[in-house]
């Protein structure tokens, strides 16, 4: 089952020009440097896992990419829209960015006062200008893909954590994003419920979706992602093909982190 059928053609034309590029992105809160000099480029269809110790800036990096947190230095380019740090992005730029990037949060953040269906339809109506019928039809397809068509008329509070996270994925997919960002999507879930979310993500990846996944799931990082990035203290300390980085890390900092994780 393919969650993103159009991406094959994307992968064919895009390899030279990356879909997403970060140049020297940095973020400070007051005097606290949280991200420093992050360069990153992502080709269409690529799946990148970001791992690293708590507080290393992984979430902040994702939030800088979609400007939930404006970077303090550097620039973010997606397609042909570039947002420079220090300039407040125009409404149009912000809109392009948000439509191109879907985000899934650790704590789901579904809208509790709306039904599952409305959660998925809202942005289609308000942002894409679809009618309610069009939006609901698309939402029903997306919910069916994540296996939750029967929950459409329920409120999120009546769904399990794993179901809520799958709904959140459907909500993010509703804008047809080119890139999906996941911030520890399974960390708030029991292992079993985490599995159903991971399997949806794996299908997405296999369908060709471009993804950045911050995760503590080492198996996912190693087996599903094409590339692994290890962060520590606001910097990228190592990156490369997932097999190489996970099994044979070169830097001392990366070795220390992986060692600590595997000892658990």
């Amino acid at each position: 089952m393919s969650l993103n059928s159009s991406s094959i053609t994307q992968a064919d034309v895009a390899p030279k020009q990356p879909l997403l590029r970060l140049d020297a992105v940095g973020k400070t809160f007051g005097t606290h440097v949280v991200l420093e000099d992050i360069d990153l480029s992502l080709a269409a269809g690529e799946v990148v896992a970001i791992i690293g110790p708590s507080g290393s800036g992984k979430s902040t990096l994702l939030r800088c990419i979609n400007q939930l947190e404006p970077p303090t230095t550097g620039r973010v380019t997606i397609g042909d829209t570039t947002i420079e740090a220090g300039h407040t992005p125009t409404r149009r730029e912000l809109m392009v960015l948000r439509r191109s990037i879907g985000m899934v949060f650790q704590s789901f953040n579904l809208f509790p006062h709306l039904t599952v269906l409305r959660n998925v339809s809202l942005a289609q109506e308000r942002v894409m200008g679809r009618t309610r019928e069009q939006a609901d039809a698309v939402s029903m397809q997306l919910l069916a893909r994540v296996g939750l068509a029967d929950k459409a008329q329920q409120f999120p509070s009546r769904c399990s954590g794993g179901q809520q996270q799958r709904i959140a994925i459907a909500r993010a997919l509703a804008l047809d994003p080119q890139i999906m960002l996941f911030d520890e999507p399974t960390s708030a879930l029991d292992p079993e419920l985490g599995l159903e979310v991971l399997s949806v993500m794996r299908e997405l990846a296999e369908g060709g979706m471009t993804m950045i996944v911050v995760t503590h799931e080492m198996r996912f990082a190693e087996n599903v992602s094409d590339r692994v990035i290890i962060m520590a203290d606001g910097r990228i300390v190592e990156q490369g093909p997932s097999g190489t980085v996970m099994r044979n890390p070169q830097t001392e900092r990366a070795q220390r982190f992986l060692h600590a994780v595997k000892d658990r």
Partner: protein
Amino acid sequence: MNDLVDFWLEHLPAMLDGLMVSVQVTGVSLAIGVPLGLLLALAVQSRSKPMRGIAIVVVEVGRGAPALILLQFTYFGLPNAGLSLDSFSSAVIALAWCTGAYTSEIIRAGLEAVPHGQKEAAEAIGLNHLDALRYVILPQALRVSVPALLGFSILMLQASSLCFAIALPELVSQAYLIGSTTFRYMPILVLAGLLYAAICIPATIAVSALERKLGAHA
């Protein structure tokens, strides 16, 4: 006893007229004041400094000054500034101001009760500020605020009795009028009290029931 009931029945129509005026002045004040409270709650959090400044002054004066002073200011004070209003309009301005000031605090607390992740999720799916507010934040904030807003509305009905000071023919004014012609102040004020209670006690019970219901669904 029969005598008292006869006295009450005789004056009940005038008293009900007064109650109608009380309910009307309260209703109109709330209809203007609660939306004003919403705007003030948003303005107090605004990024624009002048906007924040104005909102804070309006709120602090509305909460700081006793309602009786606001009433007298709009009725006796504004004519000095060249603006003469009838007692109903003066009452509405004063009570709507008071309502706006107090309900802005209630609504602000409701806005703060909405988890930050809701705003982020709304932004991440591309909603602009206004849509995020309208479809995501406000519905949740107002749901939290509704019991307190209804409780405040009941208090405002009682506070509308202060309008007797500016000659608005509401319930207490009517009672005084009847008292001054019959010299039976005590019984007629008791009737006024009973009429307030007849509205406020059931309303209070309904509000607590609603509060329990909303609490159970949260």
